């Protein structure tokens, strides 16, 4: 909604038509003879060698999975093998021109993409560069394991063994794998060659690779990004969201710097099947996949269909597309036709296709046709290729033997090191900035009007005994803004985006006025595409930057489910700690807006291993936690309640400090001392709990010990246990629907940790297990002060003279449970 762009009714309503450029389909028609001008004979033969290595690698896996033996080596493994036998020429052709500065991301079927990119890099890098990379990776441990395969003088040969062995032992879940076996077949990668994670979620790399391209674009990094996927992924919303994100007009129309298109190639290895469904003709409507670029951008994504069974056709297309990308005109889409002979997985019965179809493709298998074309053109004698195949097989046998040998390739020993996975769940580092260059800003921080306004506010709600007016009071929103300003001026890689973040200042004004401080490339409006917002942040962070993104309402977490629950949370551990994930995801818990805009979904996020979860309820907590989150290296889901953006600091002595400080994520905020009952709160429920606390004290002579849980994961229970041991009684209050809420989890832990000290069961007071009714009926749905008193009276200790208002007897509780409400 920038004012600079005029939405002209005359132009908008004017008649006309949309025209399209032709989309090329398999236009490559050169012969090997012609191509010998472009390629040396060695290059042409090496292309064949690479195809053969890929074919042998997956044929080996196929034999191991189906027969438990490869070339006399008896071995097997229980993990997945999504093979791409048949697709090798397309992979080799794609990788041929790419180097280590180009990032590639993949899918669940990416062995060939990984290996071909590695082989291409090995060819391009000097021996010294290769040795440095191998020595530097995991402290040289992978190289040491490779050296056990036998002495070899040729560094390139050593590097080939290194990459094959590292990949295979990763697939075999061995500690010598590139990620200590913690990623496996569907998550193997090797960053030093620009080989980024492949992904077990179909289309999962769509937004992540787009975020990597955003990182390259904003931070001026060399190289382009290739997002590889299969044609099945073209049906997935997040992939469309990502492609639209990459094609946003604002890169040209609004950005002051880093103008131009995103350096990303969406390459689809189109084998006609999404597992068993046939995309063209059955589940999709595009007829030809290359068409879809035209649905997103006037550039039509420079899409074309190319013949992936001819490696030279793929190289030809890549050369042209790289030129477009390097000129800042991306994104680009390639519909790379190929075919897989192997099943989706080794349990595939091929019920969805005929033998005739497979045989017809086998007849044009590049391993036969490309070899023949080289022989026919006189590039090499046929015997040369027999030699290559023999050499490939010999090497692969050696690799397989070593990767299966528990002496050379041991499993991670969980008994000897029970913390092996635990250690990588969080990186727990503090990083001031991810790059040393000056942050790109529009004016000095001290001159930014909105920032100055925040600084002038009163940090205490009461000054000289007088309450400060709402407008002059430093509130929770200001606390968040202040930290974000500070961090934007420190970490040049930090970018913030989300729905309506820039001109609007965020729906709840946390970014108000911040557009004066930083250019578009550091604060911009994202499309209403939650999957893309979170997914790109994941890609941005794992490429080396820091991202602060916002989903406006916590209820939209569902729209970014895969990106939050599978991607943001898991890559640190799946990479055995090699990748970092400095993403802070702000989500706002609504009120007044009914059933789909008022939900506290902290429990969903807290359930997922690998996410840190915060929910500050006071300005002091908000500032300290945001400071921690924006300096850390872990993914944080940062909940904020719309009910309390305006509150001043009522609990912390002296109000919110003007200076910088951090609150350790995991701490608990003790807001009141008492001896009779412990009240634990999460989020805005703190303030209703404090009303109950007042009544307890004034009418019933009970003093409550109140602790606000501002960090849900991790959570140090020390203060909680201490309080419950003291009082023996505990009520847990939050606005989340009570069933399966985070407070239920806390109650469970308290029961286990403090059982003998409990004078009554821990009682969770949460919202009803209903839809949120309209705001007018809030008091029937969300916990109120009286509910807390009811809970104490009915379940913990009867209060003298108290009349239950909204109670829940055992019979009623059982009825509700039985009805599921």
């Amino acid at each position, binding site marked *: 909604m920038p004012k600079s762009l005029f939405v002209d009714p005359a132009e908008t309503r004017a008649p006309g038509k949309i025209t399209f450029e032709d989309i090329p389909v398999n236009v490559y028609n050169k012969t090997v003879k012609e191509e010998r001008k472009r390629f040396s004979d060695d290059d042409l033969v090496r292309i064949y060698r690479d195809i053969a290595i890929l074919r042998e690698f997956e044929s080996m896996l196929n034999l191991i999975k189906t027969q438990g033996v490869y070339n006399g080596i008896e071995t097997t493994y229980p993990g997945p093998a999504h093979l791409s036998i048949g697709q090798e020429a397309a992979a080799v052709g794609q990788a041929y021109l790419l180097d280590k500065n180009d990032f590639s991301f993949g899918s669940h079927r990416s062995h060939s993409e990984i290996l071909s990119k590695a082989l291409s890099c090995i060819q391009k890098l000097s021996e010294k560069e290769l040795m440095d990379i191998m020595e530097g990776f995991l402290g040289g441990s992978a190289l040491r394991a490779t050296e056990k395969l036998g002495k070899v003088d040729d560094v390139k040969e050593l590097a080939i063994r290194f990459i094959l062995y590292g990949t295979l032992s990763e697939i075999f879940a061995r500690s010598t794998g590139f990620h200590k076996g913690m990623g496996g077949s569907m998550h193997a990668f090797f960053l030093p060659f620009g080989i980024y994670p492949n992904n077990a979620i179909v289309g999962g790399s769509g937004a992540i690779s787009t975020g990597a391209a955003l990182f390259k674009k904003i931070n001026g990094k060399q190289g382009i990004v290739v997002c590889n996927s299969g044609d099945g992924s073209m049906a997935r919303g997040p992939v469309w969201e990502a492609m639209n994100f990459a094609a946003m007009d604002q890169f040209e129309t609004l950005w002051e710097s880093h103008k131009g298109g995103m350096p990303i190639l969406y390459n689809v290895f189109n084998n006609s099947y999404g597992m068993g469904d046939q995309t063209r003709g059955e589940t999709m409507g595009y007829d030809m996949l290359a068409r879809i670029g035209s649905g997103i951008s006037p550039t039509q994504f420079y899409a074309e269909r190319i013949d992936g069974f001819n490696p030279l056709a793929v190289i030809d297309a890549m050369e042209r597309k790289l030129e477009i990308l390097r000129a800042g005109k991306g994104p680009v889409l390639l519909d790379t036709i190929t075919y897989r002979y192997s099943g989706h997985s080794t349990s595939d019965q091929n019920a969805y296709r005929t033998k005739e179809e497979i045989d017809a493709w086998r007849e044009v298998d590049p391993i036969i046709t490309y070899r023949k074309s080289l022989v026919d053109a006189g590039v090499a004698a046929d015997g040369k290729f027999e030699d290559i195949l023999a050499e490939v097989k010999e090497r692969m046998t050696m690799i397989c033997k070593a990767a299966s040998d528990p002496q050379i390739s041991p499993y991670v020993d969980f008994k000897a090191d029970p913390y092996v996975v635990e250690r990588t769940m969080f990186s727990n580092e503090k990083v001031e900035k991810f790059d040393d260059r000056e942050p790109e800003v529009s004016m000095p921080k001290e001159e930014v009007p909105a920032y100055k306004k925040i600084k002038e506010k009163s940090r205490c709600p009461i000054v000289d005994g007088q309450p400060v007016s709402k407008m002059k009071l430093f509130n929770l929103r200001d606390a968040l803004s202040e930290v974000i300003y500070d961090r934007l001026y420190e970490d040049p890689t930090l970018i913030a985006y989300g729905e309506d973040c820039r001109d609007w200042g965020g729906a709840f004004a946390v970014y108000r006025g911040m557009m004066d401080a930083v250019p578009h490339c550091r604060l911009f409006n994202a499309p209403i595409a939650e999957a893309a917002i979170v997914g790109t942040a994941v890609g941005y962070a794992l490429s080396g930057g820091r991202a602060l993104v916002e989903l406006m309402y916590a209820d939209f977490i569902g729209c970014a489910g895969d990106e939050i629950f599978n991607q943001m949370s898991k890559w640190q551990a799946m990479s055995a700690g090699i990748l970092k994930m400095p993403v802070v995801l702000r989500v706002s818990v609504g009120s007044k807006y009914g059933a789909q805009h008022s939900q506290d979904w902290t429990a969903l996020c807290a359930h997922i291993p690998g996410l840190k979860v915060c929910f500050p309820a006071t300005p002091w907590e908000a500032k300290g936690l945001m400071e921690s989150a924006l300096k850390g290296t872990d993914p944080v889901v940062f909940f904020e309640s719309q009910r309390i953006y305006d509150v001043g600091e009522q609990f912390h002595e002296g109000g919110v400090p003007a200076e910088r400080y951090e609150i350790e994520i995991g701490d608990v905020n003790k807001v009141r001392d008492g001896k009779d009952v412990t009240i634990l709160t999460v989020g805005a429920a703190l303030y209703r709990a404090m009303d109950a606390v007042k009544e307890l004290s004034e009418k019933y002579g009970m003093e409550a010990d109140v602790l606000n849980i501002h960090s849900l994961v991790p959570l140090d229970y020390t203060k909680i246990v201490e309080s419950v041991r003291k009082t*023996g009684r505990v009520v847990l209050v939050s606005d989340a629907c009570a069933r399966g809420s985070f407070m239920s989890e806390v109650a469970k832990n308290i029961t286990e940790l403090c*059982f*003998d*000290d*409990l*004078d*009554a069961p821990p009682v969770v007071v949460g919202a009803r297990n209903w839809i949120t009714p309209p705001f007018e009926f809030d008091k029937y749905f969300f916990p109120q002060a009286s509910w807390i008193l009811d809970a104490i*009276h*009915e*379940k*913990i*200790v*009867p*209060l*003298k*003279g*108290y*009349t*239950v208002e909204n*109670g829940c*007897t*055992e019979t009623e509780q059982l009825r509700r449970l039985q009805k599921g409400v």
Partner: protein
Amino acid sequence: MAKAVIMPKAGITVESCIIGTWEKKVGDQIKIGDILFTYETDKASFECESTEEGTLLEIFYKDGDEVPCLVNVCAVGNPGDDCSALRPETAAKEEKAEEKSAEAPKVETAAAAPETTKSESGKTAVSPRARKLAERAGVDAADAVPTGPNGRIIERDVRELMNNPHVSAKAEASSVKESAKAEIAAEAEYEDVKFSNIRRAISKSMHASLATMAQLTHNSTFDASEILAYRKKLKASEGALSGITLGDIVLYAVSRTLHNYPDLNANMIGEDSIRLFKHVNLGVAVDTPRGLMVPTIFHADEMSLLEISLAVKELAKECREGNINPDKLSGASFTVSNLGSLGIETFTPVINPPQTGILGVCRAVDRVKKLDDGSIGIYPAMGLSLTYDHRAIDGSPASRFLKELGENLERFTTLLAE
């Protein structure tokens, strides 16, 4: 109206006491402060003073009965007062009656809490916290009047029971014990005597000591000329100084010597660790009519010889009179047992667990030795027997302790000056 006198609680860990002998009988006039009966814990014996005034109407427990702390023992009031409600048996019955009548539907709100609440199931629930408190306080949580939700006995109910004890369900069990005892008495010819609590404690502790520790004893002697001469001087002096004994002198020397041997001034914790004390807390074995008792002189290393002497006398008196605070009967880091006055020349003291050492002090016997001028002289040789736990300390350091202790005693007046 009749009022009850309860079995007092003689220490935080004491759960029940045994009645020694009743000093009063039913019908006697009682004033507040009159001694009603004696009772003993596993460590000491006490006298129970009346908290009520009037006629002793009924005695609920007899000599030798074990009574839970804070439970009614007898009733005092005006002749003719009904004291049935105070009887522990009656209380147990009432409790049951209440449980039966509790099947009525639950009242929606407990309007006048903390009124008694009732459970729907008829079972009496006790909160874990209330149960733990009751265990620690030595009361039966089931005796409490429930005021928690749904008839649950909660912490405040147990506290109420501790402050205002009423009746116990345990009395029935006691009367059964009583009849069993009567049967045994009919046998005659010999007498089976049940150990007193103190005897039981000694038995348990001494057996545990020998069964679980690696104990051995070293014996040595030292020339007691100097301390005997010093003691003679003290005896001739005026006032408290004249009461200082040889035993006190040894205690003083021990308190000043132990610092160099931390492993002997210690307690074993489990099998694999040891608690080293910063001060010397000396246990002193005292013979009492009820058996061996070992009160503690805390921080003996900071006391003068006279202070130690006075402390020993006071503690021994309290032990013999049976009114020692149970807290003074534990916490020692090392023990001294003096059998010298009983003519013992050498013996094997048994360690008081979890301490790591005990010193036996023996009588002095005349011995001859070669004097500096080559002639033969007679001197009083006093025996010291050190038993130590070989798990905590080895033979050489233990021997060095004995040697240093002997040397300190031989130059005692110099030691006093240090």
